[in-house]
């Protein structure tokens, strides 16, 4: 198994999850269990395996930007980093979808948050948090229920 093969496996798994989240109003159960839980768990398992099996060949460290770059210059560590992105971004996407449902945020507003989380992780998260905060500011009664 090469890092390239695992990369080819991991990316479609995440894509499937994002597709389910985008269609969440139609398939809420699938979105919650598969995209919000099982797929991030599978990606986390893959990450764990990669780290256990290949951490020994990593160089560099976490203490400086140069060392982090050195660490990620190894293909196995770069794969691990990428799967880390995929797993955590998807988990955040699932959280946004569930949170939006309980707070009554329209899916029309959730979609750009999901797209941005998919592409640029934290930008999508901060957009959703901003939308949620704005709603709380404007409708204090509703959100306190």
């Amino acid at each position, binding site marked *: 198994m090469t890092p390239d093969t695992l990369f080819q496996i991991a990316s479609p798994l995440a894509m499937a999850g994002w597709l389910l989240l985008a269609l969440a109003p139609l398939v809420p159960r699938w979105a919650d269990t598969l995209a919000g839980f099982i797929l991030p768990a599978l990606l986390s398992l893959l990450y764990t395996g990669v780290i256990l099996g290949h951490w020994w060949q990593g160089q560099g460290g976490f203490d400086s930007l140069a060392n982090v770059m050195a660490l990620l210059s190894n293909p196995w560590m770069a794969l691990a980093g990428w799967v880390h992105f995929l797993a955590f971004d998807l988990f955040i996407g699932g959280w946004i979808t569930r949170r939006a449902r309980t707070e009554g945020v329209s899916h029309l507003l959730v979609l750009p948050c999901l797209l941005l989380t998919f592409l640029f992780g934290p930008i999508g998260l901060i957009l959703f948090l*901003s939308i949620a905060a704005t709603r709380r500011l*404007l*409708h204090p*009664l509703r959100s306190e229920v």
Partner: protein
Amino acid sequence: MSDISLSSVPRAPAHPRLIPRLFGAEPRFAALGLLLALAMIPTTLAMTLDPRQFQAEAIWLKPLKFELALSLYLLSLAFFARFLPPGMTDGRGYRIFAGVVIFCVLAEMAWIGGAAMFGTASHFNLTDPVMGAIYGLMGLFAVTLTSASLVYGIAIWRHPAGLPDPALRLSVALGLGLTFVLTVLVAGYMAGQPGHLVGTPVTGAKVPLMGWSREVGDLRLPHFLATHAMHVIPLVGLLAGRMRSSRLAIWSVWAVSAGFVALTLGSFALAIMGLPAFAL
């Protein structure tokens, strides 16, 4: 719903919180206004991290200015919405209109922010057919989003119960209406020019903070005045409302409005002639 005073908000009548009390009458515009205000934080951060310049200014300064201006515009509309006829903001036609206005604001911001990100011009960009076509479309969007002030002005004028003081109502309606008319006039002319500056030589002398040229004509000054009619004239109406004679108050609103229009058109004429309003 019949009691519409400065402190009443249809959605949460007895709630003491400041933001719903100020802006709760139009939560759609208020929400987007607040989001644009929040967006100024990462935009400022980008400005400090990104060394690129555009026309001798930080490349992110323009998106930052538009976030501030559009946020203020939307929050002002949300504030004035308390004077609209009861139920107007729940009507189907109005909701579609508000949705279109929100779409236009988002499109303008995406265009201006996107241009900054990729280091190109947004307004006056005719370098290729695509950017030229987008520029034209954005002009249409800008007129559409500004038309909300005219719609509000007319609706408030036609609903005396919403704002019983005649001088104050006149000032709010006139200010909102003039924002549309003057802005479309000035910005429409500006859009037909190669840029916001008229004349040469430009070495970079500017009014502090506002950035208007102190050497040549700058069409952004009349645009600024035009767009803030909705703030200046209602403030005058608020003061005039304290006069004992309501006829005098109404006359004062008309007189100050005429003066403000003259000021805007005067600065517009100066800019067209290539003369700075604030010389060196």
